[in-house]
């Protein structure tokens, strides 16, 4: 219980750190932040209002505390360009990213589990070779190339999905990107646990092969795999960001890239905070899952 509390506290500290870092972005601008901000974004909002909105009239820590107070009631300021509340836009876009990532996760996990487990079951069999080749090629395909190829495939060659707005092509792109590495990883881990001897014992007792693979291969390896999945959540999110830009999917990633290119500082601050927080939560969820699957580890 104490470890849980300690973890929650350190998580909160890091979240605070991220918040401070994102709020510091504007202050890190070269020269006088306010002047640079106006010159770079070309905004027509009067400097006096901007100074107040970014709290540039206060020292950093005083500004941070007032920002924190506002953020705790869900006020992350207004967009420089559209004057919409940042929190509202970010929340809407984040849900879209979450939907995309979850669908990709389901597709990718299904593919990599099927491939990885069948490869682990029969070393140097057909599935093993497919796993190696697929893993190698999938890791070498850059998303900015794979995305357009998938658009081309589905829009021109086999027109099943409309080019814009459909969730399946971007999810496929994202899933293809990571499932190769995961399939290989699952294969290695499951093969390792199958070597420990319990599997041989089970086979000698006449346990059917599929049960041996699941119970003596996959189950012991699953805790470590869940934790790894959690640490890779940030990578998945980054992949989702690039995919969103390619498919014009209105998610957090396309919002971030647009805002950076248009120098909408308020939006960048809010969106970066949410993205970084999501990565942190992903790692944490992976740890929780690991402890849930293998409670012995927690008491150590």
């Amino acid at each position: 219980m104490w470890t849980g509390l300690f973890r929650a506290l350190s998580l909160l500290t890091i979240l605070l750190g991220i918040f401070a870092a994102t709020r510091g972005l504007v202050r890190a601008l070269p020269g006088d932040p306010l002047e640079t901000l106006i010159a770079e974004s070309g905004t027509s909002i009067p400097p006096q209002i901007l100074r107040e909105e970014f709290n540039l009239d206060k020292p950093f820590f005083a500004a941070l505390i007032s920002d924190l107070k506002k953020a705790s009631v869900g006020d992350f300021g207004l967009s420089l360009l559209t004057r919409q509340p940042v929190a509202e836009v970010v929340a809407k876009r984040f849900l879209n990213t979450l939907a995309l990532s979850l669908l990709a996760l389901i597709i990718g996990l299904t593919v990599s589990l099927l491939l990885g487990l069948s490869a682990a079951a029969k070393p140097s069999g057909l599935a093993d070779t497919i796993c190696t080749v697929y893993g190698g090629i999938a890791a070498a395909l850059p998303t900015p190339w794979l995305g357009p190829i998938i658009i081309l495939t589905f829009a021109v060659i086999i027109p099943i999905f409309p080019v814009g707005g459909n969730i399946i092509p971007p999810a496929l792109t994202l899933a293809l990107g990571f499932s190769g590495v995961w399939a290989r990883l699952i294969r290695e881990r499951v093969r390792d646990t199958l070597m420990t001897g319990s599997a041989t014992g089970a086979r000698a007792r006449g346990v059917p092969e599929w049960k041996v693979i699941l119970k003596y291969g996959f189950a012991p390896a699953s805790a470590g795999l869940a934790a790894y999945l959690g640490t890779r959540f940030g990578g998945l999110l980054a992949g989702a960001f690039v995919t969103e830009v390619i498919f014009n999917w209105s998610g957090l990633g396309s919002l971030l890239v647009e805002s950076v290119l248009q120098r909408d500082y308020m939006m960048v601050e809010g969106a970066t905070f949410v993205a970084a927080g999501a990565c942190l939560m992903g790692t944490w969820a992976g740890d929780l899952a690991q402890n849930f699957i293998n409670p012995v580890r927690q008491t150590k």
Partner: protein
Amino acid sequence: MKPLFNDWKSRYSLLWLMMWFIAAAFFSGSSSEHHLADSLKGIHLTHPLGCDTFGRDMLATILRGSLTSAAFALFTTITAIFLAIVIGGLTALTPKTVQFMLSRLLDLFLAFPSLLFALGWAVIRGPGWSTLIFALMIESVPSLTRLVHVRIREILTHDYIEAAKNLGADSLWIMKKHLVPPVLSICMVKLPNLFAHALMAEATLSFLGLGAPLGKDTWGSLLAQGKEYLIEAPHIALTSGFPLVLTVLSLQVLSERLSTTIKGLNTFRKMIHVES
């Protein structure tokens, strides 16, 4: 020890990399003049891969762009290795508290995708080469530093270091004789991998508009152009990405071969060490 790269996979990989490099060097001086009459022209006898939006020959443009990308990737890879050796090596000799803090700091960098750091940097300094370099350093230096750090600490616990010290070797000698070779060998194994990562990152960031400055042809900017004219001229997207994929695949194969060979080498050394 098996000879290095003595199988068909690594031979084809090396062949591809060399061919592409020679061709790119040959085309590096070719003109990038615009011929708008040929804009978006498809595959043709005079232009084997077609033309881009500005009517330039695709093959020459890709070759020129890939040379820029490769030069950039090589520069950042070597810088990353240098930084990792310096940081990882120096901190291996510091007190435990400093090492603990370093390890937490590396954790922090590894917990977030480098794309986020790059976006933060780009909004402050503006897109450009500096964003690309920053993003790549954030991506490669922490994990490599950890690798170097752990390896050095592991080596320092060996008896032969103690023996060398007792025989009167000074720290410079120990570093030269016992630390640098194994650390360099890890870095050499990692080199093709890091290089491939740098190429991919350049392509991704330039594609998003955060990397190479406008008007500079790189793999990423060509991919962006391909996406822009995907329906009118699919040949741009297809041809600009294909060599990148082949290059990354080749680098992967070489990296894999290199790591198995060096691993074999290390166990071989260990065997000799135990016997003598």
